[in-house]
C-alpha cells in the first residue's frame, strides 16, 4: 500500500468517532444539498453554524464557517459555501451545527511526538487560535497503554481549571487517549474545546489523522478513506504518487531520490507535475504501470526518470519506455538517468526513440527543463 494522505478525517467523521467514545459534541447534521440543509435546520433550530467539510486548515479565516439566524438566511449562504474552494479544495458536504453556550475555549490535542517517540498531550487555556500562538501550553507524555487519569488531573490544575470542569477534562482526555490507541490515530486535535455555562466540556471541532499503515486492522474506518481514481490505481500498483501543479512528471525508485530530483528540477527553473516513487521492485510491468498512471495527468509535457540502479535492472526500464511509446500510451519526451546494472544496454535500446538517456541526473534535468520551457 502506498502512503497517501487519505486518512485525514473530515470534521464530521472525527466527531462520529468522538461520539462513539462518549466525547461530547454539539448536535449536528451533514448536508450535501440545500434540501438536506433545510431538513437539518428544522431539526436543529436556529441560530446555527454552517461549516465546510475540508481537510485543509484555516477554514475560519477563509470564511468557510458562517453563522445563520434563519432558514431564509441559511439557504443562500449554504449554496455559496458548497461551491467555495479553500486552498484549491471543494468541500465534501456542509455540517450544520447548533450554537453552543460557550463560556471559555481551550485547546487540546493528542499527537505522535516524533522526537520523543511517544504520544503527547498538549493543552492550553487559550483555545480557538493556532497552537503555535497559544500561550501557557502544557505538554505531557502518554504511555503506550494510555493516559493516566492522575496525569490528566494534574494537567487540568496547571491549566487553572476548577470544579466540574476538572472532572470533565479528565473524562475528555482519557477518552481521547483511548480513541488514539484503539483507532491508531497519529493525531486527534480539538480546537476549540468549549467550556459551557455549566462548566462541562464540548468538542467544537475535530481533526483526526489515522495511521494509514494500521488500516489493515481497521476495516471499520475504511469508509473514511478518500482517494482519487489515480491515487487508487497508484496504490494498487504499490506506488507513492503525489500530484503537483507543474508540467514535468518525476518518476524514480525511492522517495528520497524522487524528492531530491524534485528539488533539482525546481532549482533548474522547472516545475514538477507529479511525484511517483515506484519502490524497489522495478520490472518492465511496474514501470509500464507507472507510465500508465502518469499518462492520465494531462498537464505533463515531459517525463523525467531518475533511477539509481543496482537492484533495479535498467534494461527493463528501457523496455517499458519503448513499449509505452509503441502502444501510444505516452507521446511526451522522456529524459532518463539510469545508473547501475545494464545501463549501457539500456542506452542502446533507447536509441532512435523519443526517450534519451543521460549520464548524470543534472544533464537529464537541464534537458527536460529546456524542452518544456521552449
Amino acid at each position, binding site marked *: 500500500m502506498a502512503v497517501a494522505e487519505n486518512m485525514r478525517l473530515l470534521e464530521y467523521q472525527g466527531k462520529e468517532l468522538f461520539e462513539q467514545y462518549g466525547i461530547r459534541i454539539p448536535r449536528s447534521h451533514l448536508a450535501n444539498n440545500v434540501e438536506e440543509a433545510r431538513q437539518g435546520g428544522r431539526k436543529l433550530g436556529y441560530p446555527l453554524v454552517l461549516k465546510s467539510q475540508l481537510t485543509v486548515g484555516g477554514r475560519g479565516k477563509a470564511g468557510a464557517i458562517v453563522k445563520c439566524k434563519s432558514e431564509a438566511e441559511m439557504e443562500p449562504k449554504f449554496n455559496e459555501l458548497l461551491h467555495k474552494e479553500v486552498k484549491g479544495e471543494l468541500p465534501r458536504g456542509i455540517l450544520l451545527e447548533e450554537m453552543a453556550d460557550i463560556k471559555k475555549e481551550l485547546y487540546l490535542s493528542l499527537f*505522535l511526538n516524533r*522526537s520523543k517517540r511517544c504520544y503527547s498531550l498538549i493543552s492550553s487555556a487559550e483555545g480557538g487560535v493556532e497552537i503555535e500562538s497559544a500561550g501557557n501550553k502544557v505538554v505531557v507524555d502518554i504511555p503506550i497503554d494510555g493516559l493516566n487519569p492522575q496525569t490528566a488531573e494534574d494537567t487540568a490544575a496547571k491549566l487553572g481549571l476548577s470544579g466540574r470542569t476538572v472532572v470533565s477534562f479528565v473524562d475528555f482526555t482519557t477518552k481521547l487517549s483511548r480513541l488514539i490507541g484503539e483507532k491508531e490515530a497519529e493525531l486527534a486535535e480539538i480546537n476549540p474545546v468549549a467550556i459551557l455555562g455549566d462548566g462541562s466540556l464540548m468538542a467544537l471541532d475535530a481533526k483526526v489523522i489515522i495511521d494509514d499503515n494500521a488500516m489493515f486492522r481497521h476495516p471499520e474506518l475504511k469508509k473514511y478513506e478518500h482517494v482519487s481514481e489515480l491515487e487508487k490505481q497508484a496504490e494498487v500498483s504499490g506506488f507513492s504518487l503525489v500530484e503537483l501543479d507543474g508540467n514535468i512528471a518525476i518518476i524514480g525508485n*525511492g*522517495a*528520497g531520490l524522487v*524528492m*531530491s530530483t524534485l*528539488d533539482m528540477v525546481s532549482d533548474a527553473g522547472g516545475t514538477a507535475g507529479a511525484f511517483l516513487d515506484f519502490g524497489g521492485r522495478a520490472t518492465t510491468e511496474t514501470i509500464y504501470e507507472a507510465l500508465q498512471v502518469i499518462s492520465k495527468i494531462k498537464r505533463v509535457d515531459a517525463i523525467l526518470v531518475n533511477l539509481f540502479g543496482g*537492484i533495479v535492472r535498467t534494461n527493463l526500464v528501457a523496455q517499458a519506455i519503448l513499449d509505452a511509446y509503441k502502444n501510444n500510451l505516452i507521446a511526451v519526451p522522456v529524459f532518463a538517468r539510469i545508473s547501475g546494472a545494464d545501463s549501457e544496454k539500456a542506452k542502446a535500446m533507447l536509441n532512435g526513440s523519443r526517450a534519451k538517456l543521460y549520464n548524470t541526473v543534472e544533464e537529464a534535468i537541464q534537458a527536460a527543463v529546456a524542452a518544456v520551457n521552449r
Partner: protein
Amino acid sequence: MIKMATIERTFNIFDILVGSKGDKDFGKKPVVIQGITGSYGSTHTRLMKEYGTNIAAGVTPGKGGQNFEGTPVYDTMADAVRATGAQISGIFVPAPFFLMAAIEALDSGIKLLAAIPEHVPIRDSIKVLEYAQKKGARMVGPNTPGVIVPEVMKVGIMPAQPFKAGSTVVFSRSGTLMYEVSYNLTNRGYGQKLGLGIGGDPINGTNLIEAFDLIRDRSDVNSIVVVGEIGGDAEEQLAEYIIRTSFDKPVIAYIAGRAAPKEKRMGHAGAIVYGNYGSAESKVANYARANVPVARRPGEVPDLLAKKLRR
C-alpha cells in the same frame, strides 16, 4: 516513553556487526534472517551472502527443518539463536507481522534488529522500541535499507556497488539517497566505515542522535554525512546535539524535499511538513548554527566534505 542516549555508551555496533580482531568469527558474525523463505527475504539473503555476510540461519514458522540454499531454517527465533549464537537479526517479514517477529527476536536475545519492512504501524514501532530498550537491544528502522560495513558485511537491501571501505560514516533517512550519496563519495575516493539507514518513518528505532553516539568516540571515523529529508525535527535535534556536545568530527548534510509542497506526504510516511515544523528551511537554519554545510544536491556532498577535511 523512550529515553534517549541511555544505552549507547555500552552498545558498540561495530563489536556486534564485525567483532574484534581476536574473535574466532571476526568479520563473520552470524546473522539470522526472519522471513528467509519469502520472495523479498530470499532475494536479499542471496545478495547478503554474496557480499560476505554470514547468514547462519533463517526463520519461517512452519518451515523448520528445511534449508534455504544451504542455510538452515528454523520455526522460531529461539531455535535459530540457540543453534547459531547470533546477536543480529534482519527482519524481512511483511509489515503486519513485524511486531510479532521483532518481539520474538528480542526475547531470543538478539541485540541488533535491522527492521527492513515499510508500512509498519506507528504503535507497533513504538512497542518494539520500548521492548528493545528494556532488553538492552537496538533497532535500526523500520523502513530502512539496513546497515552496511563496506567490504565486510551488510544486513539489509542496499546494493553493493555504491559502497567502498573507508573512514566516512553515512547516516540516511532515505534508502536510494543513501546509495546515491555513497556512490558519489566512493567515486571521489571517500570510502565508508559504516552506512546506516535511519529509516523513512516518523518513528525511528535509532534516531540521528543515537546514531552519532554510536560513532562519536571512534578514531577510525573521520567524517559523517547525514542524508536527511523534510518532516519531523531530527535534523534540528541533531544540530542542537552537535552544539551541546561539541561534536568535533566534520559533518556534512544533505536535505531532500526543499521544493515539496506542505502537508503532503512525499512517499515516506515521515516526509511531511506541517507549517514550519519539518520544513527544509528550519533544518538548514539549524544546521547553519551547528556549522554543518548543507549540499544543494547529492553530487555536491563530496565537494563540501573535501573542503571540510582540508581545513
